[in-house]
């Protein structure tokens, strides 16, 4: 039963110091230093709370990283290096992106992925949300629509332009002075669809709104931005994804249901429990009579993915979603949003979306 408490900087420094003291103590006893990492990839560590979403349980299985073992010593060193970077960042109240950390020591880390993974490990180890570590993710998301805000460094951002989208900020918690008269936020799975809506001036046509895309699997900043908008504006959040298992997975990402293996620790602050599935729904395919040649048969992998998705804890409390997924299973077909162009070239922005929004076609 943990509520989200903001961790003070001093507390973070203390936690890092206690890790160092443990290492010094081991060495003073001529023992090999060992780090205990909570095992983020183990199912045993995950539980679901309907108010919060999925989260790490307090009982954790742990992986030990030894300093006297050639196969793990490099990871040990990488963890210590990043701890020392975080320590300095927190102490000086400055920020660095994960990219910065990697490029400062490419030889030690080998890849960006290694840095990203270790930052998440440290977040779990210290029991501190990653952004409290002053390490920012570089975001790839785009945002556009009726929205103005100010970045931490004072830059004013205006998302109204219909020709170019704005990159989602790397420092969401530093955003202030959010101004918007949008009636809803729409999450769009694919960049191509996002661009299409941008080209068709979607955000001004129907009603003021904000559109955002994570370009596929959403990165943390995109999800944080959605959450921030939800917190500040209290307007509905809709999702427009492909009618296929991957689309549903991306949808669940915004609900932080799917990130078992990465961010469950941060579920408290990243969850947006009320994202509504606007489209493309499997029932839409039947209802709109999307031409058969625009439909793609489900592969064996798709089918097994669907089965495992249906077993996810979150979906047991979403009967409407389950119904749609079972429909997909039965019909054995999937479709991308682009398939709507088979009905008419501008069906998506002229007919489909306006109707959906006007007549409550979301679940």
């Amino acid at each position, binding site marked *: 039963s943990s509520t989200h408490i903001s961790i003070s900087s001093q507390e973070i*420094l*203390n936690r*890092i*110091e206690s890790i*160092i*003291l443990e*290492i*010094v*103590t081991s*060495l*003073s006893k*001529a*023992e*090999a*230093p060992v780090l205990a990492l909570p095992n983020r990839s183990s199912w045993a560590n995950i539980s679901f709370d309907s108010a919060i979403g999925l989260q790490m349980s307090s009982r954790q299985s742990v992986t030990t990283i030894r*300093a*006297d*073992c*050639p196969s793990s*010593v*490099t990871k*040990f*060193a*990488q963890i*210590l*290096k990043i*701890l*020392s970077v975080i*320590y*300095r960042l927190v*102490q000086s109240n400055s920020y660095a992106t994960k990219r910065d950390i990697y490029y400062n020591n490419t030889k*030690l880390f080998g890849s960006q992925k290694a840095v990203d993974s270790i930052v998440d490990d440290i977040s779990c180890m210290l029991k501190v949300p990653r952004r409290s570590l002053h390490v920012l993710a570089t975001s790839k998301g785009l945002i556009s629509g009726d929205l103005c805000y100010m970045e931490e460094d004072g830059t004013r951002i205006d998302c109204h332009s219909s020709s170019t989208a704005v990159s989602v900020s790397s420092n969401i918690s530093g955003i202030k002075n959010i101004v918007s008269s949008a009636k809803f936020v729409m999450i769009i799975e694919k960049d191509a669809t996002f661009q299409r809506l941008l080209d068709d001036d979607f955000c001004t046509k129907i009603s003021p709104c904000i559109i955002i895309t994570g370009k596929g699997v959403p990165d943390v900043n995109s999800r944080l931005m959605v959450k921030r908008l939800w917190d500040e504006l209290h307007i509905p959040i809709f999702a427009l994804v492909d009618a296929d298992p991957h689309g549903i997975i991306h949808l669940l990402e915004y609900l932080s249901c799917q990130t078992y293996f990465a961010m469950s620790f941060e579920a408290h602050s990243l969850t947006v429990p009320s994202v509504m599935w606007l489209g493309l729904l499997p029932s839409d395919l039947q209802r709109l009579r999307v031409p058969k040649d625009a439909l793609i048969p489900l592969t064996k992998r798709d089918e097994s993915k669907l089965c495992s998705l249906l077993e996810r804890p979150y979906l047991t409390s979403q009967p409407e979603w389950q119904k749609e997924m079972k429909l997909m299973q039965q019909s054995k077909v999937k479709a991308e949003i682009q398939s709507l162009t088979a009905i008419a070239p501008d069906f998506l922005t002229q007919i489909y979306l306006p109707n959906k929004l006007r007549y409550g076609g979301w679940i």
Partner: protein
Amino acid sequence: MLKEMQQVLRLIMLMGKQRQKLGLRTGGGLLLLLWTDTEVSTQKLNCTVNCTVAAAGPWCAGIQMEALQPALVRLKESMCPCVWPCNEPDPEELSAFTDLYGSLRFLLSFQVKDTRHCTSEWQAHLEAFLRTFTLANAGIQIHLKLKINQEASLREFSVKVKRRVALADQLLLTLDVTCSAPPPCCVKKGCWCVRGHPAIGGRLPLSIPPQTMEQGLFGDLSVQVVTLLTPCLLPYPNVATELTHIQVLVYNPSNIPVTGPSGFFQKLPAVLDCQELGLYRVYCSSFKDLVYSGGTVYTVEKDSWDDPEQESSLPTVQQSLLLFFFLQHSDPFTSQLTDLMATEMLIELHLEDILNNNRQALVAAVQTELRNTLKSQNHRKKQQEKLHAAAEVILGSSMSIVSSSSNMDFRNACLSRMKVHDTHELAASLRESLWRVTSWKFVPKAKCFSTKMEVHPENDEPTTAEI
């Protein structure tokens, strides 16, 4: 005298080998009594030495002296300068021996007139030969009692740590795998492996050169390579090793070491591919501390371009590689003891020709064994470099946090744990401790510390604890 003793030993060994195929145990005692007569003048010019060879124990069980007569006759013929019979040995010496090993199975006495035998140099040669003999026949305990010119000495050659190795053709060897190298100072008591672990290498068929065949050597000749790397560092996977010496020992089919320098092996290092092995050079050297006789010793030098500074700081243990070449011969037409003796004499006589005739294969065999040893050596080095590089990062990061911390309790706790006064000393003591802990990580291995004398998996018979 050495030659004569070798011949007698050969006889006993060949008899034992015949019986070994029945799966009997090896082990027992060999008594060598050498004395000069007190009545004979003590002038070195006229030295007569009496020699008695006696054997008892399982290794010669079933031998009957009467059955040996034909072989003994041949033996006497081949040992010309000897005088048969000679003075009887001291019965007390014999009874002390039989008390230990049971009744005598073999007893032979002879006399040799030779000036060389009364020198201490000759004694040293004899002892070196016997030591080399027990290296590959570790089950036999040798008692050497000398009474030369009123100076008496007693030497016992027994082996602390043995290991049985099974080769093809049901051939069982008992090797001396004792490692007497003292453990480095970082090693705790009871955590040092005192035995070597012999590895069976390749078995090469050897083609007999035509001129040797003309002399009467036929049949199948081959050589079995066995390697022994000491000291054993299996329990210390993070320590770097450095191969510095290689010793080659050749044994006859009767398991008696071939004495005398080998031109072939002396020239062998020159044809090794040092570049492939990553070595600077391998050359034949005279090992001052020559423990085993008849062997050829090589010194190994690795690349002199290696960073000298890094070398001195990373712990490295030097190792030596013992290469056993066990000659094996089989010929369906020679089964009589006398024939076996003669065949072996031929092999020994023509050994250089035989080796030269199989130059390529033998060089390749040595290259392979070296390559295998160096492979694990290089792997260790890489592991150690990895640990070292990571350790620097670990230390740097830790010290960065300690140095920039404003938490006095934390800083003081770190200093007091390591019993130092300031961060400068802290860095040094952390470094020292981390290196020691990671380099000398101890992983106990069953085969290094169990008390059983293991038998090679190819021939898994239960054995008694013999350490």
